[in-house]
């Protein structure tokens, strides 16, 4: 898969962004973090491509390192608004503080800030997988609406699928740490993420389409 093809496929997140822009004012606020993150992701994909084209690999790595933390914050915010931490704001902030400390530590250890923070990526993907599975179970038990029409179902499923493959690819990369590997192998591992990313972006778009309109109360008074 060439860089161009990879870039075009990654732009699929644009569908979600477009749907988000169209529906933004008419949907429930609890979906806002999802749309914010979709916009940030699209921006990151575009900047990544530009940086690769200009062969600024260190800058790209730094940006992805920062994005990992931002992604974690937005997903936990989304889950928090969906009631994962029983709407406990302190717990939500505490979890993010812990994540920030881990991000700081693993961004400078074992390598510098210009190298991928692999340990943090494995940890945050695992945490998000746990959060997503718990929220998924809540949705399946509590929501009585058909699952196919439930936006939370599509979004959470997307998160579970993406981070499962992400975790697989990242742990494989981690096991190769320190070993001199070929460019093809690294690209091959990246492709696993790219294909899952494509499927997940389409699932996010379906989820965004399913988000119901906010109920307007004209009031009887």
């Amino acid at each position, binding site marked *: 898969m060439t860089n161009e093809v990879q870039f075009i496929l990654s732009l699929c997140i644009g569908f979600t962004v477009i749907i988000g822009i169209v529906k933004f004012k008419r949907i429930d606020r609890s979906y806002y973090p999802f749309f914010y993150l979709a916009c940030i992701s699209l921006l990151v994909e575009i900047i990544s491509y530009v940086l690769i084209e200009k062969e600024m690999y260190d800058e790209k790595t730094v940006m992805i390192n920062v994005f990992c933390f931002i992604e974690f914050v937005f997903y936990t915010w989304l889950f928090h608004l969906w009631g994962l931490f029983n709407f406990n704001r302190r717990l939500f902030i505490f979890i993010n503080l812990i994540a920030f400390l881990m991000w700081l530590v693993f961004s400078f250890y074992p390598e510098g800030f210009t190298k991928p923070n692999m340990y943090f990526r494995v940890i945050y993907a695992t945490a998000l997988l746990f959060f997503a599975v718990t929220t*998924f179970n809540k949705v*399946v*038990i509590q929501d*009585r609406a*058909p*699952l*196919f029409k439930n936006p939370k179902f599509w979004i959470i*499923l997307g998160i*579970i*699928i993406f981070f*499962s*493959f992400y975790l*697989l*690819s990242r742990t*494989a990369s981690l096991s*190769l740490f320190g070993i001199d*590997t*070929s460019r*093809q*192998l690294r690209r*091959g*591992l990246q492709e*696993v993420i790219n294909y899952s990313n494509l499927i997940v972006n389409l699932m996010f778009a379906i989820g965004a389409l399913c988000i119901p309109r906010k*109920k307007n*109360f004209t*009031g*009887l*008074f």
Partner: protein
Amino acid sequence: MHTQEEEFYRAILIVAAVVGTILLYFIITAIRYHRKSIRMHKDKIQAEIDTLENERRRIASDLHDELGPLLSAVKLQINNIETVGEQDQQLVVKSSQHIDSIIQKLREISNNLMPNTLLRKGLKSGIEELAETYKKASRLEIKFNCDQEIRLDQNKEINLYRIVQEVLHNTIKHSGANLLLISLRKDDNRILLATADNGKGFDYFSKSKELKGLGLRNLQSRTEVMGGELICNSQPGKGVTYIFDIPV
């Protein structure tokens, strides 16, 4: 890629395929069990509501058809007693009055259990009568607005009537409101029942989680059984608005 790398990459792909299959199986089973759970839940609520309504109907009919005539006969017999003195006469009159109030009370209970007006004249008249009864019994001002005559299948009418009854009960008992507005409208393929009070309001999510919130769960269950949607808009200090959107 070297041979060793190729083998490693192949192993990763196999693991990815296995993970993908497990995820697919997980999704399919989750959807199947969700559907099954919804069906079972709905059947269970329907059975509970049916049992409750049948029992109410039976008790109402027993009270009205058996105890009522029996008490009337007793009253007739008491009135026919030939009294000797003034004291006996007063006793007979008093007993007759007591029997009258018992008969009246029985009618009220029977009507409360299974309202005749609802069964004979339909939902609009049923709710009108209910609102009048509650208006007399409390200081709550109730305004009911319905422009059309609405006839639905009896189960739906009873469920909607019970919902209004529950809302009235909750408003009087918990809200501290002095005004309740009820609106009933039928569109092409749905019934819209809306209620709004000017009381102290509550936090819907925390209340619906409480086990003792039976009234709220009753509203949810009856709406669910009719395949409808319950929307509650309430904040502490800002009253409660319920909207029941029921497909016909």
